[in-house]
């Protein structure tokens, strides 16, 4: 009901069809980065949500169709990418550190 779904949880495709999914993956030297946090900000810079990376270096948000900024916090640095999300699933944002 209320708690976060673990990021590796498989989402029902029927549910996915009703969501706007912003997702991504973080790698370093080709291997997943598992300790880090992805933060979703709106175009005004307002913080919206944060999730930890999962064991595959992945993150996922359920947002709305809009432009977003993803800030990545990892040990030793902050990285940032802009993304425009459309309704439904969106291609993964790739952070190759």
């Amino acid at each position, binding site marked *: 009901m209320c*708690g976060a779904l673990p990021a590796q949880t498989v989402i029902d495709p029927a549910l996915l069809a009703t969501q706007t999914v912003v997702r991504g993956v973080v790698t370093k030297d080709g291997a997943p980065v598992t300790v880090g946090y992805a933060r979703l900000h709106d175009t005004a810079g307002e913080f*919206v949500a944060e999730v*930890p990376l999962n064991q595959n270096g992945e993150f*996922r948000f*359920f947002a*709305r169709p809009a432009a977003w900024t993803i800030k990545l*916090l990892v040990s030793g640095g902050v990285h940032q990418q802009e993304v425009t999300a459309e309704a439904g699933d969106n291609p993964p944002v790739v952070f190759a550190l």
Partner: protein
Amino acid sequence: MSNPNLVDAEWLLAHQDDANVVIIEVDEDTAIYDLNHIRNAVRLDWKKDLQDPIRRDFVDQDQFSALLSARGVNNDDIVVLYGGNNNWFAAYAYWYFKLYGHEQVRLLDGGRKKWELDGRELVSDVPARAASTYVAKPQNLAIRAFRDDVVKAIGNQNLVDVRSPDEYAGRLLAPAHLPQEAGQRGGHVPTAVNVPWSKAANEDGTFKSAEELQALYAAAGLDTAKDTIAYCRIGERSAHSWFVLHELLGLENVKNYDGSWTEYGSLVGVPVQLGDEPGQAAGTR
């Protein structure tokens, strides 16, 4: 910031093996503890351990006593809580411990995130703690609000909606790391100001300074002479803001409404305000 209700990593490292210090991890994703945790930390599951399994309410005084007894917590122990997601659920547990009258509770500033990003030790070993005889006090309802309190507070008290601006305005029904559930109405309680919990936290999850926090709520129009009710979606983010207002800034008469928007937004006949403005007490619908 320096505050008796907060500890930092250095304090925790110095007291990690103290017999009267109980470290407890409380996470939104309760499986994270199994992966690793701070050495000597035990787990509390915010859902299985702290919620009644049938009706929507907390475990009662006797159940909470039994829970903490099984975890080996004594009434005079210093309980140090930490967790992921900027201490959302750790703050919720902090408020919950205070609700049942535990005296010595602290939050680890920055929670699991800062600890992890600073590269500090995490282990998978689960500590063995001997069972204790814990006796919880009756709920301190001076810090818990119910739906009727919220309805009465419209236009009369400070109502602080600590969700994201999109949730406040009704553009989203849940925080963006959760699927957007249908079935509730979007919007906020009329006259509630929007001060997202995240504005009280630095990027590393630590709390902002007292001066910054005071300025934040003053800018939002919070009248410190009035009683305050904080709410979010299920009461965990608002526990974070309750901690800021009550424990860090020392405001009296601050309550957390744990029913929050999942209850209020489903009530029949109460006023709901859409959009980015607080709205008026009368004439809203």
